[in-house]
């Protein structure tokens, strides 16, 4: 694994951006400043960043209802994201989409998605396009353990494997589908076991270790770029907060389980590694965190000061312009 110090610091910064963004988004929802619900990615930062750090801007990702982390990991604009959460015209969807519909085609972000598993067929389609353009592009399909039992995901995996599409299926197994424990919904311990049934390699990795995720994603992306077809990566991770919003305790999870996972915080783990390797010092790591916090507050200010969408814009962005 050859990663420059600059790249490592960029990965740490992106993880911190996700953490700080979603922490504030959670609070702002409670203050009724954010419109609609937010599904927070706090605790899962290593998964999105470890995968997206292997991608180019012209590679694609499909995301989920818990999509803020994926957008930021792929380089999304925090100001447009907060503006979208505030339903302002400067947002990614011009204030008409909210948390679960943000996309940035310039960065290959094909959109968050409020429908469980619905990103997978889109990813297969994007993978088909990548293959036929033959420019070495790949598509990553993020989905959760809940979506792993959706038919659309299985159809997409079958198609991708049959046509050897350059798609990497990344299942972020955070142990809960909404409020139901993983073990109550699945007969297997490792979602990645299903990959074998579709004729693609599947691996399970420590989703709290961004470098472990990166290494697996790097190899899977390399396979896809070489034309060797799809792969399946299961990142074992944990969401710190409830299914929606912060910790409302709707269905309490075992305290011991929560404490165990929080003791393996992905940002803490990576920070300690970077400090041990003299890539960062305590002071420089703190400076990054503070800089990100400043960026978050500036983005919130931008969102608050942005205009509401005009009523006349209501029917815009429904259909695309067709060019001959």
């Amino acid at each position, binding site marked *: *694994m050859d990663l420059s110090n600059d790249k490592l610091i960029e990965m740490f910064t992106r993880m911190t951006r996700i953490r700080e963004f979603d922490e504030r988004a959670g609070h702002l929802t409670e203050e009724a400043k954010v419109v609609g619900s937010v599904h927070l990615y706090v605790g899962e930062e290593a998964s999105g960043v470890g995968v997206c750090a292997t991608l180019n801007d012209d590679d694609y990702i499909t995301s989920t209802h818990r999509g803020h982390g994926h957008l930021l990991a792929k380089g999304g604009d925090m100001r447009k994201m907060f503006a979208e959460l505030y339903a302002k015209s400067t947002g990614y969807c011009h204030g008409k989409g909210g948390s679960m519909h943000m996309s940035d085609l310039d960065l290959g972000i094909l959109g968050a998605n409020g429908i469980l598993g619905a990103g997978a067929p889109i990813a297969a389609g994007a993978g088909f396009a990548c293959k036929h353009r033959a420019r070495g592009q790949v598509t990553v399909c993020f989905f959760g353990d809940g979506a792993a039992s959706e038919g659309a995901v299985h159809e997409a995996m079958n198609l991708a494997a049959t046509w050897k599409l350059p798609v990497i299926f990344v299942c972020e197994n955070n142990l809960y589908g909404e409020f139901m424990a993983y073990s109550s919904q699945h007969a297997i*311990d490792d979602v990645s076991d299903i990959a*074998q049934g579709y004729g693609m390699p599947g691996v399970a990795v420590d989703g709290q270790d961004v470098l472990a995720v990166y290494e697996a994603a790097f190899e899977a992306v390399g396979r896809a770029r070489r034309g060797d077809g799809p792969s399946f990566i299961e990142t074992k991770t944990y969401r710190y907060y409830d299914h929606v919003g912060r910790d409302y305790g709707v269905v309490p999870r075992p305290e011991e389980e929560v404490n165990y996972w929080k003791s393996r915080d992905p940002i803490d783990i990576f920070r300690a590694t970077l400090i041990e390797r003299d890539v960062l010092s305590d002071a420089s790591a703190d400076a990054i965190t503070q800089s990100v916090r400043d960026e978050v507050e500036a983005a919130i200010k931008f969102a608050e000061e942005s205009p509401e969408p005009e009523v006349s814009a209501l029917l815009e962005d429904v259909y695309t312009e067709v060019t001959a």
Partner: protein
Amino acid sequence: MPGTVGIIANPASGKDIRRLVAHASVFNNYEKVSIVRRAMVGLAAAGVERVLYMPDTFHICTKAAAELDLPFVLEPVADTLRADALDTVRAATAIEAAGAAAILSLGGDGTNRAIAKGARNVPLVALSTGTNNVFPTMIEGTVAGLAAGAIAAGAADPAVVAPRCKWIELAVDGIGRDVALIDAVVMADGFVASRAIWRIDRVREVVLTRAIPDAVGMASLGGFVGPVSPEDDWGLHLTLGQGGPCVTAPIAPGLFRPVPIAAVRRLEFGARVAVAGPALFALDGEREFTIRDGEEASLYVTRLGPPVVDAHRCLTAAQEVGFLRSDITAAVQSG
């Protein structure tokens, strides 16, 4: 307690990144349940009275027992699961403390290393379910259960059929830090990350307890330049680099790489290999930890590893004392 056997089945073995970077097999947990089920039948046939097991997230042992009418008591040995290697270490310690006569393991080299760290004196029947395993063997679960049962029943003497294995002890700045059963690999500075080894260009040195050409991984590499058997009272030290032979070795399942070897040295028991930091250590195929600039590690081979049951010798010895045999006349009359 006489007649007690432990079972440790690792639910995580056989799933790592080598499915992506090599052509490693997938070993799903239902197959492990099936193997444990057959092993339990073997244990029952041997008259084992009590089986202690490591609980796991997939409930391998309870699923295995669910379809059986077992004559022994089945008990978990731990109450807290971390879903990592420490579960295995703790379970092995608890099984040893409970006086088990043998431990039956399902996993790879890494699983057995964790068991060895937790229980150094209980005879180990090691069944392979990992990736490129050298330590455990591919034996039928029924036979493995029977072998562990024969030890527990007193039908085979562990001092005869379960010799202690070699292992590698690793100390950092003079303080014991870890052990490995098969290989300790010194890599250029890097990260633990996904743990497995396939980038051979990052490997600097290899210390082996056994070097066998009919293996996969580092043991194979050594096996083609200086074979060392499990019975030999020495190990092997390879320094990679130019100046010696180049071996095209299977460093992972289905993955061959040319490996230049600068030096090969027979490593007598206790002879130390010194390693100056920075360096990354991989033990039994898994990257584990780093030492920094200014730190120094030393590695040496001893025969202080756990006793390992040779199933063939064990059951051959058992049959010599009438194990599983009843009086033929009585059997015919009762039948």
